[in-house]
């Protein structure tokens, strides 16, 4: 039998990610006999094992049918037929299996001895039908109107205890081991205005949350600054580039010496955050999405922000949004005009929730541009030469190389959009407000800013509609893979600028 104090658990953390519509369905289902009686369902989970955490993602609900659960008792009593059906089903899919049940109103999500027996039995039982996959057990409670969760997962012959739940929309409090967490003492003087607007709880949520930012240039550095000042608990900052002179016009926290020293942008960000608030944990990764070490770091974040003008990054962001249920916002700015006449200063913010269409469905990806971005330097040079040769022969050079226009931008635009996207991340993390758009575009120099929003649909054949929450189990259907020629990811969080050069 399991011990409530989990004496044998690993100290690696378990993180749960949930999103709608599956979570909405789950909530209605397990609270079906609320407030006095429990109810349960089996579910399927995707997962990813990182060096620090097992991340499990709610992929689908295998709801009970009549007779699967005993209606005559107030606790959960699962009939053998339901268990056997789920076990045989597990032989046909590749996801993890789990049980999710409710505790009655006001009941803490502490596993009972019956729950312990069930988990001990199921963890061994499903290991026979779904070997090598995690068995997940979750308990949901409603305490004083707040949704509370506890859970554990059995994987590799060991139990991991749920430490954090990243929910796309619904606020969920995670009670480790089913026990109420100790109240934190928060230093709220600096965030007094935010607390007066959003409440003390919002500050607590910020302190216990993390945001990953892809790109620490103009927009990324502005977003990082806003999040740091708001009091976010952890930032994951990813960028492969170093500061040069042309960045000084817009990168927050960068100085001429950084251009002289060619300091990695992620180190500039880490240093700037430390100057604002030393208690914020910053993971500074010199790398790119979707490199494996980068994915390991960002899938543990609550929200992901895309702040690059790179198409591969945009595509990877939307891939993570649906496979790992990682709510993301991609942003970009472009200055339009020629010969000194500015005709447009356009910003775009695109929401990628788990059930939103991906970047391919939204037709945001230019296949030629992304191919060029992903080429090695050698292949790029070879292609340019082939295009030149084709021109000399009188042939079409485009199949070999097609010059892509340089995207121009300036600091006041990147700062404005970076701050906006950070604001929406704060709204998502605190659950205080939502993004009122799917794909927002605005022109800063047009009357009424020419604001447009575009609702788009998933294509029926696209992976984004088929593998929501499948995590690594849909890696064959990922929208993009990291090229082998990219440099290995360096984690500079504990390193220094010299090592990165």
């Amino acid at each position, binding site marked *: 039998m399991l011990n409530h104090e989990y004496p044998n658990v690993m100290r690696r953390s378990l993180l749960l990610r949930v999103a709608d519509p599956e979570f909405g369905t789950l909530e209605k289902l397990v609270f079906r006999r609320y407030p006095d009686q429990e109810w349960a369902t089996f579910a399927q989970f995707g997962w990813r094992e990182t060096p620090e955490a097992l991340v499990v993602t709610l992929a689908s609900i295998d709801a009970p049918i009549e007779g699967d659960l005993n209606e005559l008792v107030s606790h959960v009593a699962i009939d053998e037929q339901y268990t056997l059906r789920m076990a045989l089903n597990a032989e046909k899919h590749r996801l993890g299996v789990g049980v999710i049940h409710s505790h009655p109103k006001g009941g803490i999500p502490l596993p009972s001895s019956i729950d312990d027996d069930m988990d001990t039995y199921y963890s061994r039982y499903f290991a026979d039908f779904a070997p090598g996959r995690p068995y997940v057990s979750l308990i949901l409670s409603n305490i004083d109107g707040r949704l509370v969760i506890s859970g554990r997962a059995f994987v590799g012959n060991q139990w991991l205890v749920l430490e954090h739940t990243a929910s796309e929309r619904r606020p969920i409090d995670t009670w480790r081991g089913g026990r109420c967490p100790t109240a934190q003492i928060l230093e709220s003087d600096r965030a007094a205005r935010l607390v007066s607007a959003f409440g003390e709880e919002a500050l607590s949520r910020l302190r216990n949350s993390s945001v990953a930012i892809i790109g620490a240039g103009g927009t990324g550095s502005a977003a990082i600054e806003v999040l740091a000042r708001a009091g976010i608990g952890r930032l994951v900052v990813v960028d492969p580039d170093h500061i040069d002179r042309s960045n000084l016009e817009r990168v927050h926290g960068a100085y001429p010496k950084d251009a002289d020293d060619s300091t990695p942008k992620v180190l500039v960000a880490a240093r700037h955050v430390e100057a604002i608030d030393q208690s914020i944990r910053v993971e500074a990764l010199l790398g790119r999405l979707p490199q494996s070490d980068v994915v390991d770091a960002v899938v543990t974040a609550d929200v992901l922000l895309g702040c690059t003008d790179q198409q*591969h990054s945009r*595509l990877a962001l939307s891939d993570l949004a649906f496979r790992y249920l990682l709510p993301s916002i991609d942003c970009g700015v472009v200055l339009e005009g020629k010969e000194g006449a500015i005709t447009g200063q356009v910003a775009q913010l695109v929401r990628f929730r788990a059930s939103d269409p991906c970047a*391919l469905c939204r037709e945001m*990806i230019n*296949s*030629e541009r*992304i*191919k060029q*971005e*992903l*080429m*090695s330097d050698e*292949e790029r040079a*070879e292609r340019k030469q*082939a295009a030149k040769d*084709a021109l000399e022969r009188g*042939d*079409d050079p*485009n*199949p*070999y190389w097609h010059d892509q226009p340089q995207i121009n931008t300036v600091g006041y635009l990147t700062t404005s959009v970076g701050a906006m996207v950070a604001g929406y991340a704060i709204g998502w993390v605190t659950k205080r407000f939502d993004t009122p758009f799917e794909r927002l575009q605005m022109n800063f120099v047009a009357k009424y800013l020419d604001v447009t929003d575009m609702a788009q649909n998933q*294509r029926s*054949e*696209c*992976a984004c509609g088929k593998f929501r929450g499948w995590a690594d189990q849909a*890696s*064959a*259907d*990922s*929208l*993009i*893979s*990291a*090229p*082998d*020629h990219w440099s290995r990811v360096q984690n500079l969080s504990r390193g220094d600028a010299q090592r990165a050069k």
Partner: protein
Amino acid sequence: MNRERIERELTILRDGGQLAELVVNGEPVVLYRNVPTDGERYGLPAVTDVVVPVPSGYAAAAIDLAGLPAGSPLLPRLKGGTNVQRVVSVDGRQWQLVSYHPHNGGGGPPWDQMKHGFHTYFDHLIAWLHRIC
């Protein structure tokens, strides 16, 4: 490289009787074995092995190019065959990549990673090897 995806695509071909394998020692390529050609009636090989490079970031980037064994008599008779690209070493042999771009203005549909892959590229190779001039 999305090895799982490529293997899944090659399994489709193998299930249909066409031998194809992913070779990763060196530049990753897919090696299609004994691909039929229309060469016999011109006194050229009736089958040939073909290599196709795996593009960086696949499947985000489109499959492009094709290569035949260096010195193959088919090369000068195929579309783009005289417009040589780089030589790659695969499976102990030298292969000449040539200018063949079905998904980039070369007669095929624009690249769509939800529909296309190394299994559908095989159809383009067959068409290419049957247009001998």
